[in-house]
């Protein structure tokens, strides 16, 4: 089991003077990865909703087509 390398927690935060760079890179990495996951997750959960909406639209069109046919029939 490796040991904690830094003497204190504040030394850990300071990263031997390289705090900006280290935390910047770790922060941006996990930020980007989280964003990627969030977007992927969101589109996955949205897609079924969108499909359902589309199906509703289809029903609308069907209804209209039926209406048209009923209108046309007496004429012909």
């Amino acid at each position, binding site marked *: 089991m490796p040991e904690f*390398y830094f003497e204190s927690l504040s030394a*850990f935060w300071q990263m*031997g003077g390289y705090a900006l760079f280290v935390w910047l890179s770790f922060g941006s*990495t996990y930020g*980007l990865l989280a*964003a*990627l996951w969030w977007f992927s997750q969101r589109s996955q959960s949205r897609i079924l909703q969108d499909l*359902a909406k589309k199906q*509703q639209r289809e029903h609308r069109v069907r209804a209209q087509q039926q209406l048209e046919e009923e209108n046309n029939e007496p004429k012909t």
Partner: protein
Amino acid sequence: MFKWLDPYAKPETLYRICGLWFPWLMTLAVLTLLLSTVWGLGFTPADYQQGDSYRIIHIHVPAAIWSMGAYSSMAIAAFIALVWQIKVAQWAVGAIAPIGAVYTLIALLTGMAWGKPMWGTWWVWDARLTSELILLFLYLGVIALSGAFADRQLGAKASALLAVVGVVNLPIIHFSVEWWNTLHQGATITKFAKPSIDPSMLWPLLLGILGFALLLAALTCLRLRTAILLNEQHRPWVRALAQQSVHKGSVPQTNAGRGV
């Protein structure tokens, strides 16, 4: 050829399989990444030359390696899609591309953050740095191309073709350090015979590499599921799924009769 693969290429089956795998892969990936980060950040000694800034290696190298790995897997999928006309492979291209782009971006950002303390500048026009930037452009090109067509299937096919053509850049990135003398250091861990890195530092790095790979797989599963649904929406099984989601009440009943 590859007849045994056929059932997996069936979208519905693959959708289920991805759904099964995703939670496991994701959990594993998160655990490995956390472990590697904590270990790499706090439990390894500092580099005698670079001090604590070297800890960036635990994400820089995995991201850089898998930025190319993602490209190769994307290109392989694209090749399969083009030659054997397997639709699932074609959708996999679009699923992997954004992940690869993000990995590349991470490699670039962490590289820049590492370069500032090491080389004294955020950016130099060095062969490896430039070629990694080009890799990002290639990814963006694939993404842009797949979104540029009114016909989604066509976009997927065209971007698959581009992905295959872009493979020429991979060797250029990998060997750029050898072909041109650059600031960027050469292979350290890929020289497996005699890794020029201390073993205590090596483990968290290897864990990081594993974690990024697992994350790549997990996110690919997730995105592929979305792509399958999107492209198979005329199939009965997807329609049934959508209907289910309505009955569950997750979809607000829209104002269907708009105008008509």
